């Protein structure tokens, strides 16, 4: 990994952690709602620098936030980790397959679905074990995820545009683009 990548990862992970912290200070309008602002950074990093950078940022964010909030290895940590890893992987797949069809908004929507469905599945398998209870909350969680997914996708699109305007280096073919 080049030192340039490390710098990018460090800066973007710091942004993601900052956004995550900011989000925790905003009272959620609905009890189950999470904005997932950190996904703006994950998606932007994914589009600019590829899966490995985005995944590293996600892992750093989940780890640091769980250490800061004292939820490391707790149920919340498992759900964050699962949701973050799954959505980053699925968004990466969706971006490489369908980038001709979808703008960042579509990729963000797909990521939001992956995040929520993974968390619901994990919650069922590990903690709740009551199918009807999980099914009961699934539609409302997905619906909220669609709204926040749209907002985050547009924010990511805006950020990409802004970065492009200022001539930030776009994704270039470096060693990190080729997965081992």
């Amino acid at each position, binding site marked *: 990994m080049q030192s340039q990548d490390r710098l990018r990862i460090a800066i973007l992970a710091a942004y993601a952690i900052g956004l995550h912290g900011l989000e925790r200070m905003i009272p959620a309008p609905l009890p189950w709602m999470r904005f997932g602002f950190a996904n703006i950074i994950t998606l932007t990093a994914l589009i600019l620098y590829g899966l490995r950078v985005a995944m590293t940022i996600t892992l750093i964010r989940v780890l640091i936030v769980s250490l800061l909030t004292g939820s490391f290895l707790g149920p919340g940590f*498992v759900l964050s980790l699962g949701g973050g890893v799954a959505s980053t992987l699925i968004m990466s797949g969706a971006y490489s397959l369908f980038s001709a069809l979808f703008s960042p908004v*579509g990729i963000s929507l797909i990521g939001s679905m992956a995040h929520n469905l993974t968390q619901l599945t994990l919650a069922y398998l590990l903690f709740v074990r009551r199918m009807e*209870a999980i099914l009961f909350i699934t539609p409302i969680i997905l619906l909220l995820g669609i709204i926040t997914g749209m907002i985050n996708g547009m924010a990511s699109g*805006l950020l990409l545009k802004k970065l492009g305007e200022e001539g930030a280096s776009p994704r270039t073919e470096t060693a990190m683009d080729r997965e081992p």
Partner: protein
Amino acid sequence: MSLIRETFREITIYDWILFAALTLFSISGSFLVKGLASTGDTATVEVNGKLLYRLSLTEDRTVEVQGPIGVTRIEVRQGRIRIADSPCPNKLCVRQGWTERGAIICLPNRVVVTIGGGATGEVDAISG
């Protein structure tokens, strides 16, 4: 802000189709699961997958159960049930308020209150 307008314009038709399909899917899903929400005049209280109480909703009562992180207080009043107090950090279960169908779940303290049928003996093991 022209950038915002430009960003908005860049949302493709496929993005909108995906958005519409997902919205439709989850809204129809919410009607579907509404029928699933069990009703009845009993409620079961489980902690960590273990059935602790089977409460009658016709009888006002308060019970306290010990979960992994503390004591959760559950109240039955006039055919409805709620979690009145919980040691969990976000208090989602308390905020759900009085309920007469479906379930109340407190993930941090592993408390599950199910209205109607509920646990009929085949409670699965809880891992993790």
